[in-house]
Every structure is written in structure tokens, then in C-alpha cells.
């Protein structure tokens, strides 16, 4: 005797359409939430990974966790600038920039609710250090003037951040003359202006950080050791990529914990749904199962057939959930990073790995929901099953 044909399982699902659709939609919703949260965490990770470069080094004051809290005086900045490992650019300049990073409170378009935005005082080298950043509209601000350029996500969402508009802070009006596109990075949520002008406007005599590019990425440990042991200053040096990863550790952990707990709770609910469906399917078909057994099908054939049915429910739910989750890629989330108190925009990002995880997850839900009912079906006594009405 061969196996029970696969079409048997499919047709069973088709016969009880309403139940099948309800079970699948329950599972689809769970997979949707599961996939969305993975996509969100992935989007955040991607944004941060792409923000920092591996061979860029950020120098901030020792013990300060972020550029906003840090302060580097002119003497320390000059010492950092003289390090021999710093890369030389095409026109012979050393690739090092003294920068100022502060937060300003800007109202959002539409809701008018204020939020903290990073404003970065930059030099001409700052752009060379971040090749991800491209001018999208307008022109570059002239050095030494009250002109600024805004990241795309700022231009879109904050009042006064668009091309041709002006922002007022530090007793001055600042004209937005350019919009830059920084791809999928955190720089998209920043405003850039001339560092010396901004320092005067904010009355800050110190820089926030010094950024430089290494000529040879392997020199990092050597430079770090020399800089941090220099008795003239108390600073720490970090790779830019590590720096940005640390900036959102709390946020990433929050998303992970939230995602994990939601997934566990939701999947329990959906698995119970599948279990109810499969138990009922078995109970309704006692006679049928008896007949199949009488025809000579083995217990394991019955077990496989019912398990197949439940796995089918799972995979259908998984595919439906993923289908809807893929639309989440169109959405960009912008929220406050708890660690830096500043705006950060990132979007949902779907990867092959997430598709794979979601499908495996939906199969597991189907399996767990179906295994007990299937075992019950396979254990039925032929005579009793045939007698049941």
C-alpha cells in the first residue's frame, strides 16, 4: 500500500473553507508581526552599519558616550590632527575634520510637535570622509556663511528644513541652500553647516569630536593607544562603525525584547488556533480514518497525511503574512533614539534571511498545532472508528 496522496490533504482544507481561511488568517497575522519586527530590527541595524565607516575614527572626550556630550578643545584637536597615520586625500589634504554636534529643537511639519534634531558643524573634509552623502538638490553651503544643508528626512519632516526655507537659532537666520541624500544612513536625519559659524552662534569654544580616516585600517590599535595615552588630553578613539553601533544599543535591545515577547505570545495563540482546527478535522473524519485504515493504509500514513494538512495551513499562513509584511518596506519609522535623545529615521528592511526565518517559524507553528491531533488520528482503532457516527 502506498502513501495517501497529497491532494487528499489539500482537498480536506478546501472542503472546510471558512475554518481554513480563519486559521490561516490567524497564522498570517502572527507571521506578519514576526516578520515586521525582524524587518524593523534589520532596518535599524542596516542604517547604523551604513552610517559608520570601518576606517574612519571618531575621537571624543573620554567617558562621554556620544558626540553631543563630548567636548574637544582646540589643543587636543590639533594633537589629533598631527597623527601620521591619517590618510591623504586626492588634493593632498589630510582627511581629518573637527566637528561640532549639538541638538536643536525643531517643530515637525503638520503636527507642529517639536523634536530634537542633530545639527553638525562641518568642514570641507567632512564630506570627503562620508562618501555616502550626495547633494540631492540645491547647492553646497559656502564656507564661512550662515548657510546650511539638510538631510532628506529632515527636509521632508521638519518645518523650515526644506530647500529655500530658513531656520532661526542662536540669534541668526540660517538659509537652507541644499538638500543631501545620505542613502540609508543616520546622516539623513542631520543638518550640516559651517563648524566655525555654528560654534560662534552657539557660543561654544570647543569642538565635539574629531573625525579622521586612516590610511591603513590596520593602524587603528596603534593610533588609539598613542592618542589615549597622551597626557595632554583625555580622549577616546573609536572606529566610526563601532561608535554608531553603540549609539543604538538600547534601542536595538528594546526592539529585540519587544519582538521576542510579542512573537512568543502571538504564536501561542495561533498555534492553539491550528490545534483546534486539526482536532476538529480529526474528530469529524473518524469514519473516514477508519475506512482508510480498513483499506490498508498504515498508521504512519494517516499521521503523515494529517501532519501534511497542518503544515500546509502553516505555510499558507506564512506566505500570506510575508506577502503583507513585504509592503511594510514602504514605511519609514522616525523616532527618538533613547541614548542620544535625537531623531533617527529608519525603514523596514526585508532580507532573504527574514523570509527564511518566517517560513520556518510558520512551519513550526503548523507542526506544533498538528502533531497531537495527527497522533490521535493515527492511534484510532479501526473497528471503533468505523462504528463512530
Amino acid at each position, binding site marked *: 500500500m502506498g502513501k495517501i496522496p497529497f491532494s487528499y490533504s489539500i482537498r480536506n482544507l478546501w472542503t472546510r473553507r*471558512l*475554518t481554513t481561511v*480563519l*486559521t490561516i*488568517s*490567524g497564522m498570517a*497575522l*502572527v507571521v*506578519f*508581526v514576526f516578520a515586521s519586527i525582524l524587518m524593523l530590527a534589520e532596518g535599524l541595524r542596516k542604517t547604523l552599519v551604513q552610517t559608520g565607516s570601518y576606517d574612519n575614527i571618531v575621537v571624543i*572626550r*573620554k*567617558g*562621554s*558616550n556620544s558626540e*553631543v*556630550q563630548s567636548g574637544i578643545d582646540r589643543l587636543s584637536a590639533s594633537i589629533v590632527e598631527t597623527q601620521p597615520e591619517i590618510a591623504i586625500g586626492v588634493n593632498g589634504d589630510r582627511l581629518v575634520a573637527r566637528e561640532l554636534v*549639538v*541638538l*536643536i*529643537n525643531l517643530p515637525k511639519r503638520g*503636527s507642529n*510637535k*517639536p*523634536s*530634537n534634531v542633530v545639527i553638525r558643524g562641518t568642514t570641507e573634509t567632512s564630506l570627503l570622509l562620508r562618501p555616502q552623502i550626495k547633494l540631492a538638490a540645491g547647492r553646497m553651503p559656502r564656507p564661512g556663511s550662515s548657510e546650511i544643508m539638510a538631510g532628506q528626512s529632515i527636509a521632508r519632516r521638519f518645518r523650515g528644513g526644506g530647500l529655500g526655507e530658513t531656520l532661526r*537659532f*542662536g*540669534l541668526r537666520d540660517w538659509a537652507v541652500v541644499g538638500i543631501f541624500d545620505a542613502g540609508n544612513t543616520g546622516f539623513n536625519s542631520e543638518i550640516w553647516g559651517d563648524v566655525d559659524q555654528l560654534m560662534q552662534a*552657539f*557660543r561654544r*569654544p570647543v569642538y565635539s569630536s574629531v573625525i579622521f580616516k586612516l590610511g591603513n585600517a590596520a593602524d587603528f590599535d596603534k593610533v588609539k593607544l598613542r592618542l589615549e595615552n597622551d597626557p595632554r588630553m*583625555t580622549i577616546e578613539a573609536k572606529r566610526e562603525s563601532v561608535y554608531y553601533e553603540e549609539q543604538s*544599543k*538600547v534601542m536595538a535591545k*528594546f526592539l529585540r*525584547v*519587544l519582538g521576542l515577547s*510579542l512573537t512568543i*505570545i*502571538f504564536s*501561542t*495563540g*495561533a498555534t*492553539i*488556533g491550528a*490545534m*483546534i*482546527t486539526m*482536532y*476538529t478535522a480529526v*474528530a*469529524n473524519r473518524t469514519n473516514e480514518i477508519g475506512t482508510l485504515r480498513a483499506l490498508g493504509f498504515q498508521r504512519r500514513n494517516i499521521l503523515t497525511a494529517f501532519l501534511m494538512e497542518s503544515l500546509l495551513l502553516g505555510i499558507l499562513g506564512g506566505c500570506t503574512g510575508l506577502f503583507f509584511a513585504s509592503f511594510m518596506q514602504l514605511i519609514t*519609522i*522616525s*523616532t*527618538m533614539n*533613547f541614548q542620544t*535623545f535625537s*531623531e533617527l529615521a529608519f525603514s523596514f528592511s526585508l532580507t532573504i534571511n527574514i523570509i527564511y526565518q518566517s517560513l520556518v517559524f510558520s512551519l513550526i507553528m503548523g507542526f506544533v498545532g498538528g502533531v497531537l491531533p495527527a497522533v490521535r488520528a493515527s492511534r484510532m482503532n479501526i473497528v471503533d472508528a468505523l462504528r463512530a457516527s
Partner: protein
Amino acid sequence: MFILKLIFKNAFRHKLRTWLTIVGITIAILAYGLLRTVISTWYAGVESSSATRLVTRNAISLVFSLPLSYEESIRHVPGVKFVTRDNWFGGIYIDEKHFFPSFAIDPKNYLPLVPEFVIPGDQQAAFIRDRNAALAGRKIAEKYHWKIGDTITLKGTIFPGNWEFVLRAIYHGRDKSTDETFFLFHWDYLNEALKKTASRRADQVGFYFIGVTSPNLAAEVSQAIDKMFKNSLSETLTETEKAFQLGFISMSEAIIVAIRMVSFVVIIIIMAVMANTMAMTARERFGEYAVFKALGFGGVHLAGLIFGESLVIAILGGAAGIALTFPVARAFGRAMDNYFPVFNVAKTTIYMDMAAALLIGLVAGIVPAWRAVHIRVADGLRRIG
């Protein structure tokens, strides 16, 4: 009475299925309750804020400080009762994972402003007397096993170096919503140290915390203060404590919206599960419904039976879920106390739970009831399985 008995008997005809459904609903209501509590916790700081308190900060953003000289000017604005300088210290204890808010304050003016911090009299006097004294909330004191007289070292992030404090007082909250995780110490202690190490940063105040004589004066006083410093090097922005707190929340609004959406999704998921149960139940009993009809019972009667059964299951699940919310919320609050200093289940959350359970029961009954009401007697009697 008979009807009720019938409904109960019906509900537990398939024991396994009914219990599974009840467990499903319990989990869903529990999840819903927890998510709602997370949202309401976010607003805990807003709810515990007082209408007579104002916050004056630098108009550019909180990162920028205000001169110390503003304190006296603010004190002379009519309607101002107390004003205290306040600096966000942002110290790290052990490592970044052990976060609690730390502020440098002026105890004499600060303590009268916060009647919700209850401190034993002798401890309060000791805290005010000692310049390197610290005041900590009950929650963090218990968490780190601090006792009065202990020396606590915080690593400064904004103000570099290691800072040593002697714990002189522990406060507990007057209300349930009071945050018991604050760490407060003398502003003078910070300032004197800064005068020696970074004189440029001395005599600077992060923000001023102001008490007004009557909540009606809040708007007037805010305007008067901001007008006074208009066009100065440090323009100010004064708002009520509530608006100040709401400002922080609105920045992380996206997360709150997401959690709120997810909390509805869990209800929809369980609706699908419950509707499934009811659909299967009704399908098995079409024969019976036809018999009822043949005996002369009307559609209303049948619909009542189905809705009744659906509601019984939903209410049982809902009640279990609500009962479990409290212990689970306590455990969750303890596990996540870095994110949520106060984690209490609100009364409205419980009402929302109940409403959700009823809704699940009603929605699940709609399709089966509609089918049962419209079934033709002959079809129903002929139908098998």
C-alpha cells in the same frame, strides 16, 4: 435558567476544543493588557506631573545651558513661588545597563517643589546639610542594596570624572505613579568641582524648575519669563512640566503607535481563532438547529444560544486573562525596570480588557448565528457532519 444551563452544556460539549479556545483568549487578553500597560507607563511621567510646576530651558534645545544669573530674575517674576536650578548629570553607575536618572539640584528650593517625594525628617535635614550628600529613590536603593551612609560613585558622561556621593536620604513615592528611581545631589557640589576643573562650564544651569502659586498663573508666568530673556544670548522656553514631559513622549511617538497597533492585532488574531471555534461548533449542530426550528423555536432563540455560548467562552478566557495580568505585569515590570521605572496596571486597562473579551465573543458569533437563523429546516435535517 434553562437557557443558561443549555448554553453552558453546549459550550463544554467539546471539552478539549473549548479549553483550548479559553487558553487562547486568556493569552490574548493578557498580551493586550500588558501592551496597554506599556503604553500607559510611557505616559506615567506626564500623569505624575503637577500643574503648578514649570520648566524653563534654553530655547535652542536641552543641550544648551542657561546662566546662573537667570535664577534671581525668575524669582522676581510675580507668581513664582520657588525656583531651583537643575542639571541633568547623566552619571553611569557600574555600566550603561544600570541606568537611572541623576540630577544636580538645589535641595532647599527643590524639595518643597516635589511633595510627592516623601523623606523622613532627619534624613532630609542630613541631605540638606552635607554638600556631597545624595538623595535616592527607594527603588534604586533597594536594587543596589544601598544604605544610608554608603558612598556611591558615578562616572560622569557630560561632566568627566568619577564623582563620589554619600547617600544621606532615601525617598519613597507618595503616589503609585511617582518615579522612585531618581538620584539627586547638590548642585553646588557639581559647580564647585567644575570651577576647579572646567571653569568655563561653571555657573551654568541645565534648566530651571519653577513652582507657581496657582495653576492659573502658569501661562502668564511662562510668557513673562520668556519675554524677559528675549533677544539675549540664551533665549528661554518655558512650559508646564506636563508639556515638557509630553515633548519627550511625542519624540518616540512612532514606537507608541506601533505598540498600540500591535495590541489590536493580537485581538484580531484571537478573534479569528474564536470565530473558527464557533464556526466548527455551529457546523456540527446544524441538524440540531433544524430540530429546534421544526419544534417552533424562532431565529432569535437560536441566535441567542450561539451568541450566549460564544460569550461564555470569551468571558471565561477574558476573566482568566485579567486575573493573570497583575502577577505577569509585576514580573515584567521587574525584568524591564531599566525602561519603565513605574509599571502599574491602570483601571482603564482592565475595562479595555473586558470590552475586548466581549467584542471577541460577539464577533465570533455573528457568522454562525446568521447561518443558523437562515437555515431551512429540511436542509438542516438532511445535512450530515
